[in-house]
């Protein structure tokens, strides 16, 4: 029973660690830079703007969260600053963003009585509220804009223009931090917006850690061992605790494990994917399987690497597969020219007639199979779908390479031999 408890606690412990990452390791230089910028706004009332740029999954939001957490630990923070967080996916236009800002700054009461005719009036009121403040006396406002590039697509970039404008003048101290994964985000600014931006960009790259000398694979493994090692001794029996950690340390040195991590790193540097794989590996723990082995990680990696398109092909019926093979032959012979149902049907019928033991099916059933292939998006109509054109003559293009089809047929079992042979050569 003790073993039962232990493994459940382990799962819980590790999963919590993976899901709630609040500690941020690495990028100390960038972290310090950003913290300085924010501190100067909250403490000495200097306005500023900056962009935090880095590929997805590198930990931009986590970095900002950890900085904000540190700031909020200071008791003075709440009295000296207001934090406004906007997200490009939530606040999809300036009106919504403005609404969110108003409610966050507790200006709802001030607005309550007033009826704003237009967006511009609303904005100017808000700005007036901001502008009446003196640099020394008023609360500073921290704006964190996530998915910053989406704000650039708002109409006239009004919000960005006004925020940057305030940050340039000696009014209420505000600090605008944009978080984005687009390296070219500056190019998205309109000229007037660009000129008001401080051009302070902080880049986060996963390879530019603290120490460039350490290869990224070692950094990655360090982080994983942080996730997997148990740190809290209270919930576990001491022998189990020691054994688990010893096991994990061994795993971290396992050649196979390092190899699969390198493979993953070569595919993508996104840390979310690593987290997902760890999550799945930990989820596999149960009474019968109380340890994580290098094989588990490799299995998960294999599942992750699997080609979904190949799987989709393997889920087709033999008839649908035959049509797909016909399309493959057509694209090979005619150099990727589009095809329509009639052409494929002729090619398929040629194959059927050459093999007397294959049962022929009705045209409408074949058409249905063809439509099913279209539904799972293995083929797509070329150009615009013309309503006047009969569907038999609508031209399609293949969205899957012939290598993928060959691959799928190779690993599919239970296929009739004549189909496999036909897939190999177009000579029916």
């Amino acid at each position, binding site marked *: 029973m003790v073993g039962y408890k232990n493994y459940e606690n382990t799962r819980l412990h590790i999963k919590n660690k993976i*899901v709630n990452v609040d500690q941020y390791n690495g990028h100390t230089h960038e972290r310090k830079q950003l913290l300085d910028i924010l501190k100067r706004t909250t403490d000495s009332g200097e306005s500023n703007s900056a962009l935090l740029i880095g590929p997805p*999954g590198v930990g931009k939001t986590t970095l900002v969260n950890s900085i904000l957490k540190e700031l909020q630990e200071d008791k003075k923070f709440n009295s000296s600053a207001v934090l406004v967080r906007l997200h490009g996916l*939530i606040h999809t236009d300036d009106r919504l963003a403005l609404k969110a800002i108003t409610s966050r700054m507790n200006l709802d009461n001030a607005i309550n009585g007033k009826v704003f005719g237009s967006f511009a009036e609303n904005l100017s009121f808000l700005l007036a509220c901001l502008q009446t403040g003196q640099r020394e006396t008023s609360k500073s406002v921290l704006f964190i804009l996530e998915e910053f590039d989406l704000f650039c697509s708002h109409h006239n970039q009004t919000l960005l223009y006004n925020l940057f404008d305030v940050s340039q003048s000696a009014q209420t101290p505000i600090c605008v931090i944009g978080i984005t994964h687009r390296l070219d985000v500056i190019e998205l600014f309109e000229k007037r917006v660009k000129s008001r931006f401080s051009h302070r960009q902080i880049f986060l790259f996963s390879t530019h850690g603290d120490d460039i000398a350490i290869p990224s694979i070692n950094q990655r493994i360090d982080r994983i061992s942080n996730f997997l090692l148990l740190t809290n001794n209270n919930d576990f029996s001491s022998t189990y605790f020691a054994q688990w950690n010893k096991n994990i340390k061994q795993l971290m040195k396992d050649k196979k494990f390092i190899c699969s991590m390198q493979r993953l790193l070569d595919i993508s540097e996104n840390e*979310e994917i690593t987290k*997902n794989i760890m999550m799945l590996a930990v*989820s*596999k723990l149960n009474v019968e399987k109380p340890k994580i082995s290098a094989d588990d990680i490799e299995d998960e990696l294999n599942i992750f690497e699997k080609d979904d398109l190949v799987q989709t092909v393997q889920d*087709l019926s033999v008839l649908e597969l035959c049509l797909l093979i016909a399309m493959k032959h057509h694209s090979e012979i005619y150099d990727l020219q589009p095809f329509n149902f009639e052409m494929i049907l002729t090619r398929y019928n040629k194959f059927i007639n050459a093999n007397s033991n294959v049962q022929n099916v009705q045209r409408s*059933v074949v058409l249905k199979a063809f439509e099913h292939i279209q539904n799972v998006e293995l083929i797509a109509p070329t150009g615009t779908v013309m309503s006047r054109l009969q569907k038999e003559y609508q031209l399609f293009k293949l969205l899957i390479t012939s290598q993928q089809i060959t691959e799928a047929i190779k690993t599919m079992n239970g296929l009739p031999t004549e189909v496999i042979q036909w897939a190999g050569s177009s000579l029916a």
Partner: protein
Amino acid sequence: MDSLVNQLKMNFPGRTYQIERLFSLFGYKNEPFVSSVFIYGPSSTGKSAVVGSLLDGLEIRNACVNLVECYSSKVLFESILNQLSGHKIDPFKGHPYAKCDNVMDFIFNLRKCADEVDLNKSVIVLDKAERLRNMDYNLLPAFLKLKELSGLSVSVIFISEIIFEKYYFKARTLEPIKIHFSQYTREELWEILRLDFDHVQNFIRNNFNENFDINEEFFSNYLNLFLSVFYRVCRDLSELRHMSKLNFVKYCEPVFKKECKLEDSMGLWRHIAPILKASLEVLYLRISPVSQEGKQQSVEIKCDGARTVKQFTFSKESLAQFLELPFYAKYLLIAAYLASYNPPKEDKRLFMKYHGKKTKRMKDVKAKNIVSEQLNTQLGPKPFGFERLVAIFYAILEEKVDFNSNLLVQISTLVELQLLSMVSDNCDLDSRKYKCCVSFEFIQIISKTVDFNITKYLVDFN
């Protein structure tokens, strides 16, 4: 806990891997859930059923929304909130839990809802998730990281027939954890269809023969025969179930009539083989087969006093036989077909008696060599003008008829019957353009009825 997994494995044969994987992610009450899971696989492989019964079995608060129902994002948000908050819609007023027009309202109300009921570790299930691609651009990425955006521990499960690769439109989308529901193999299909035994037995007892007694082996033998014919063409479980039920009644018929014994599997096979073949032809169409056997069967079913099955003949070939067109209309249709599938420059050679000698050039030899895929009959009908239609009509018609309004009416009748379609603008009276919409098989039958050899006048066949 484990009893639930075993129960689910019993209910869903062939889904062991998927159930275990889902359970390992959602089965433990204290643990945090992953932010999003993407489930994909072909239709009727138990995606929604497994997810639904697992979540219900674990008593996880969930909201299942099928995106087919959501014509706007407003409907989607409101139905999620209604389900999560347990809000009952008053039929007289019909107010939702909260009004949401956009993601911001949705997240605001979700947080509000979390204050009232415990939303911790609740799950939102989005069925037919591929439709998210056609809705607002921010919906898919927002749902993928709803946990991060809302600050609540709410996970989202996407269920789709389309693989995740087809969802990328911007780099913003995070890769969720993916679980593939593979198509059932033949053995698994057989096992699942066997579960219908009691149902089928009751169906037969209620409708046909009260004292009919079959054992499970008899049914499994039938399913083996059935799958040997159908598996190659169709792996869709719901369609196979429908077909197997329909055909089982016919399989049992000789036994009803005491022509065969239950044990006489050879005799039963000889009886059922043509019927299965006939019903294979109407797969997915949900109409009864039109073969000769099929007709007799349905008549007999009527005599038995069971459901009366109306016989309709739907297939195009038979339509051509039964379609009664006037003599000239048939010729007009043939002329339209010829006009649609022959290039105009060949008209002279095809339809005129003294078209002069044609010298063979290299170009013509090359043109002869066009491969079957580039034939006119395969590329679809081309539009043709009214004058060309009439000219061809007179060329192929041996007798002389006056050109009068009766003939013109025939053309508009053909358009009305959708055998021809009008390509040009309706208000353009001078140069009307048409297209012929019938298939080659259809026109062959039509031309046979008037003793006309159509292949002689088609460029593709000369």
